[in-house]
């Protein structure tokens, strides 16, 4: 099958063009490095099925990061390259284009962000550019789909080896081309540029960052709480409960199947957080407790991604990130990790070296709880007011900072400096944003919820065969002695290897004190990543480094869990 590669600088819209060509949705955002591995899709070209590959963005054919290496390797396999070029940044993009035109592969150029170039007062003479480069140049605006038909039509005109000049002359050549084809008309600073400047100045920047984070937090809380209170809880209580009670009668309480599906009844009633049946707790926890927060979080995150704010935040916190051995851009994987650690782990590929990736992954696995887990922690501790939650997340943040500082001190090497293009602010394109939100929410429903159900099933089986009681006896010195938690919490710790949300959920019926709930939440967040994250870590770090990372986790959780228990028992 023929292969078409989408190649170009970071953040020029390759992923959006990919989605347009293939109908396969891939996540696109407004910052360099959203795509860190290649995605394949298929399109129909005059009755022939061809493969289209979305490649991570590169600035030149001489790669500097892992994501870029992946891209350059792909080039050997391509039968045709669509070189996606940012029309607002023609000069810079031509560096890659001229290198590409010397390769033995046919090229077509998509002059993307054509509309934005117009708004910026940039006029490009497409015909002349086409004549100079010797390959088709098609203006496109992938977000709205303009020019896509034309692009597909002209794929057959692609040519290879059309511009053979030596590497030394490249920049001089680019200068000449720009002079011939591009005119820039003068214009005043726009509001978004002024806002852009303000958000990267030290004083105004920190003020804006504080405001953005505060608003984000409030919006997530408001949407999450409202969805639970006014939609999911009523649906479960009014519609689902009567159905379950009927089913309970049919199944006969006390039977094995009743225990698995409905779980325990309390005075003849279902308790959605304590019954622990597949159809009761198994559905209630992921759908009525976690899903609302997942939805709210990704709504806010997608907005931040698409507006172009995240790299700016990275620049502001660059100094803090250097104390933990990373640079500012590492806020992007950390933020993604707050949604779910799995994409967070993958996103660490935007960091340059192995050392940074090890630090970032270890810190994420220990001190960045995912939204599913956060939602349940809110369910567990929220009733004691913001103070308890403050201790949990405050502790995690301090651990993140101190552990990062220590890792940076111990591990050889130093943290590389930030070097990143700052994308212009863009008003998120609502259709694209909703699609991304839908995809991420669906991912939770179709990949997360089944695991929760499996977890609930497994817990019941383990209880019935008294495995949990047995492990509880063995682990009680640490759990009771060090952490001050009842033996029963061991069940949650076992479940935490599989999934963190249901693990915290298992603490709900234990009637823990506030002090115990706080320690248990922190310990559960820190001691080990969930199965999905763990698998991902092995893939990204290799077995040896993952073992090292897990060792760090276990030592840290012992120290922090014990210390937290002691501190909380002393205080009044």
């Amino acid at each position, binding site marked *: 099958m023929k292969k078409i590669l989408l190649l170009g600088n970071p953040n020029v819209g390759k992923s959006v063009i990919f989605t347009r060509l293939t109908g396969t949705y891939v996540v696109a955002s407004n910052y360099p490095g959203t795509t860190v591995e290649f995605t394949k899709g298929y399109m129909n070209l005059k009755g022939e099925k061809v493969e289209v590959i979305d490649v991570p963005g590169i*600035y*030149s054919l*001489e790669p*500097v990061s892992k994501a870029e290496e992946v891209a350059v390797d792909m080039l050997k396999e391509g039968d045709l390259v669509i070189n996606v070029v940012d029309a*607002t*940044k023609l*000069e*810079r993009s031509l*560096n890659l284009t001229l290198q590409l035109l010397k390769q033995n592969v046919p090229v077509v150029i998509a002059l993307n962000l054509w509309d934005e170039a117009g708004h*910026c007062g*940039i006029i490009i003479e497409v015909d002349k550019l086409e004549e100079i480069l010797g390959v088709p140049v098609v203006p496109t605006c992938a977000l709205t789909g303009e020019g896509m038909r034309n692009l597909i039509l002209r794929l057959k005109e692609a040519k290879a080896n059309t511009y053979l000049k030596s590497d030394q002359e490249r*920049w001089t050549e680019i200068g000449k081309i720009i002079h011939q084809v591009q005119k*820039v008309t003068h214009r005043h600073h726009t509001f978004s540029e002024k806002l*852009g*400047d303000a958000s*990267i*100045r*030290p004083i105004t920047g920190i003020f804006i960052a504080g405001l953005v984070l505060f608003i984000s937090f409030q919006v997530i809380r408001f949407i999450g709480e409202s969805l639970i209170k006014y939609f999911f809880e009523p649906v479960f209580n009014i519609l689902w409960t009567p159905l379950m009670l009927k089913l309970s009668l049919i199944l006969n309480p006390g039977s094995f199947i009743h225990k698995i599906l409905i779980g325990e009844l309390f005075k003849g009633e279902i308790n959605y957080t304590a019954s622990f049946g597949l159809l009761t707790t198994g559905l209630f926890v992921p759908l009525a407790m976690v899903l609302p927060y997942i939805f709210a979080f990704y709504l806010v995150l997608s907005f931040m991604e698409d507006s172009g704010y995240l*790299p700016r935040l*990275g*620049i*502001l916190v*660059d*100094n803090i990130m250097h104390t933990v051995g990373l*640079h*500012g851009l590492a806020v992007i994987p950390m933020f993604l990790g707050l949604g779910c650690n799995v994409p967070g782990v993958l996103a660490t590929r935007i960091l340059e070296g192995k050392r940074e990736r090890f630090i970032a992954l270890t810190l994420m696995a220990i001190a960045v709880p995912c939204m599913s887990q956060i939602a349940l922690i809110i369910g567990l501790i929220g009733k004691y007011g913001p103070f308890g939650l403050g201790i949990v997340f405050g502790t995690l943040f301090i651990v993140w900072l101190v552990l990062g500082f220590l890792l940076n001190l111990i591990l050889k090497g130093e943290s*590389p*400096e*930030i*070097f*990143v*293009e*700052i994308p212009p602010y863009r008003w998120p394109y609502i259709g694209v944003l909703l699609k991304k939100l839908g995809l991420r929410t669906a991912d939770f429903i179709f990949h997360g919820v089944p695991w929760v159900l499996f977890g609930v099933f497994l817990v019941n089986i383990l209880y019935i065969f008294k495995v949990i009681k047995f492990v509880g006896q063995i682990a009680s010195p640490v759990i009771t002695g060090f952490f001050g938690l009842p033996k029963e919490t061991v069940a949650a710790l076992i479940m935490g290897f599989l999934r963190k949300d249901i693990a915290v959920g298992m603490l709900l019926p234990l009637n823990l004190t506030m002090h115990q709930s706080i320690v248990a939440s922190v310990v559960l967040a820190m001691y080990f990543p969930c199965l999905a994250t763990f698998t991902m870590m092995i893939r990204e770090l290799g077995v040896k480094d993952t073992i090292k990372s897990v060792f760090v986790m276990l030592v840290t959780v012992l120290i922090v869990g014990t210390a937290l228990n002691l501190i909380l028992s002393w205080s009044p």
Partner: protein
Amino acid sequence: MKQKEKGTIIAVTGGPGLKKRLETLSIRKGAEITKVSAQVMRGPIIVQVVNTQVAIGFGMAKKIMVEVEKESNIERSAVSS
């Protein structure tokens, strides 16, 4: 180079790796560069080259030498200073 000043890059005093990396974002000898802002405590410097804003670590910025035309004289300095 002070904030809001515009100058011309006269040299990048680093290894070939750094030069190539900076070059990919059009930061190279002869290019016009404007300093947009600088973070406190040797944080990243934000510059504008052509019509792209780029954040550069302080250490890297130290290696980019610029020439700024003042009314009476020409001032030479690093982007970071």
